[in-house]
């Protein structure tokens, strides 16, 4: 058997080992491949990056464990960016099955970055009927939320001093896997004209690109790929970067195997007939 015949008949166990290594090695060594940043993610980053320290942004987070794989890395990256730049965050937990999850995520990043509850971030709990809540927040946050998630009066939180409604904030960035994206757009952005950006799943992202052109949405972080881009912008590679690197390795490995198979096939054609 010639070399070329041999490479058309690599044992599949070798293929399996190579695939396993393509996952395990980047995971162990934390290999981060460079990631190309798309303009819609860069825009979100720029808006936050250009804010003066002490500015406030609103982050409605609406997702549950099933979409967490894509959205958690996004929330982590954005929060790290904000806390480092001393941007204050009002987190809104408006999706009932995700409340506990997201509260924990805020806590984790706050601890890591040394952010203090009440001074650097505030969480607003779940209230039913998002349309009404979003509109009332345009009048005064205290209308729907006299108290925060933990039951403390908003007036008792140092960060909320002088923050009445959207006019006192710089951006609404929703990390969202629900139709809440539309609620914030229709009842919030269209009525009160705040700057609006999204972090959504890869599947959803495709639907919202048209809003970028119309200017209703200023930036979109889409899926694990978008999260990885944001991680590379803040220079803090984490879950998303790792996930994307592993994907890159595995995809390249598979493509290489296809190429090897074809090189072998063409070089040894005529000598043997394989089975389709």
């Amino acid at each position, binding site marked *: 058997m010639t070399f070329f015949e041999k490479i058309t008949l690599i044992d599949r*166990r070798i293929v*399996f080992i190579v*695939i*396993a290594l393509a*996952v*395990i090695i980047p*995971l*162990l060594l934390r290999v981060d491949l460079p990631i190309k940043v798309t303009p819609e993610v860069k825009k979100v980053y720029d808006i936050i990056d250009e804010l003066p320290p002490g500015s406030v942004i609103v982050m409605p987070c609406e997702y549950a464990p099933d979409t967490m*794989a894509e959205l958690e890395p996004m929330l982590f990256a954005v929060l790290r960016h904000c806390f480092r730049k001393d941007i204050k965050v009002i987190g809104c937990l408006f999706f009932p099955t995700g409340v506990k999850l997201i509260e924990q995520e805020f806590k984790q990043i706050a601890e890591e970055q040394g952010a203090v509850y009440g001074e650097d971030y505030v969480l607003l709990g779940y209230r039913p009927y998002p349309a009404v809540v979003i509109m009332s927040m345009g009048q005064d946050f205290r209308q729907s939320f006299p108290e925060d998630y933990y039951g403390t009066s908003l007036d008792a939180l140092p960060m909320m001093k002088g923050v009445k409604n959207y006019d006192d904030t710089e951006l609404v960035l929703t990390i969202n896997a629900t139709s809440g994206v539309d609620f914030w757009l229709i009842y919030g952005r269209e009525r009160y004209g705040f700057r609006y950006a999204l972090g959504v799943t890869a599947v959803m992202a495709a639907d919202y690109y048209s809003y970028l052109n119309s200017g209703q949405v200023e930036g979109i972080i889409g899926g694990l790929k978008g999260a990885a881009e944001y991680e590379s912008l803040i220079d803090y590679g984490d879950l998303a970067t790792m*996930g994307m690197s*592993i*994907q890159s390795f*595995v*995809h390249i490995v*598979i493509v290489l195997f296809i190429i090897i198979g074809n090189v072998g096939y063409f070089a040894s054609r005529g000598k043997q007939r394989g089975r389709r």
Partner: protein
Amino acid sequence: MSFDPGVWLAAILTLCIFSFLYKDNPFYKFAEHLSVGVSAGYYLVVLIRQTLIPAFVNPLMAGYWHVVPELPRSFGIFLLIFPVFMGILLFARFSRKWAYVARYPIAMIWGIGSGVVIPLVLQNHVIRQLQATMVPITVQSWADIGNLFIAVGVLTGLVYFFFSKEHKGLFGGTAKVGIWILMIGFGSTFGFTVMARVSLLIGRIIFLMKDWLGIIG
């Protein structure tokens, strides 16, 4: 490293299944048979708890079938018990003489199951897909060219599935374009799926390396 016996059990079973990649072996056989037994038991329990008790036992005990509130109670209960009779007929297959009565419940399963199909598939598989393809094409933008492409693709694809005529001449050429487009579709679906499958593998390996062994942070 974890000290939770559950995590250890899960990790060992995970490795048992992965061992199948090398070849069939006793560890895989063990995990395979265990999962078959446990999942069949799980299915039975769920069926009893989620279907049989709420849908049958509870209304029977109450002497009232809530699905047919308009009918007299006793007739409602009759309607509720009728399928039990049909279900028992299934066991007739163990008798040589009466085996044919087991066909009645099967006929019923087929009838009920395939009854709703005609309008539903025509509506969701045919009408809606047809309407989605029928968009005005004015060839003024890239999206229009895309839509034209979809329309041509659907047409040639349908021609490929035409069984009354041999694939020859112009007709055969059209069918050939159809199969090409099908193949591009298959290739892209294949490529698109890789990422999701790799994510699953990453999930399992992270479980082993982080939750079980604790060798990554």
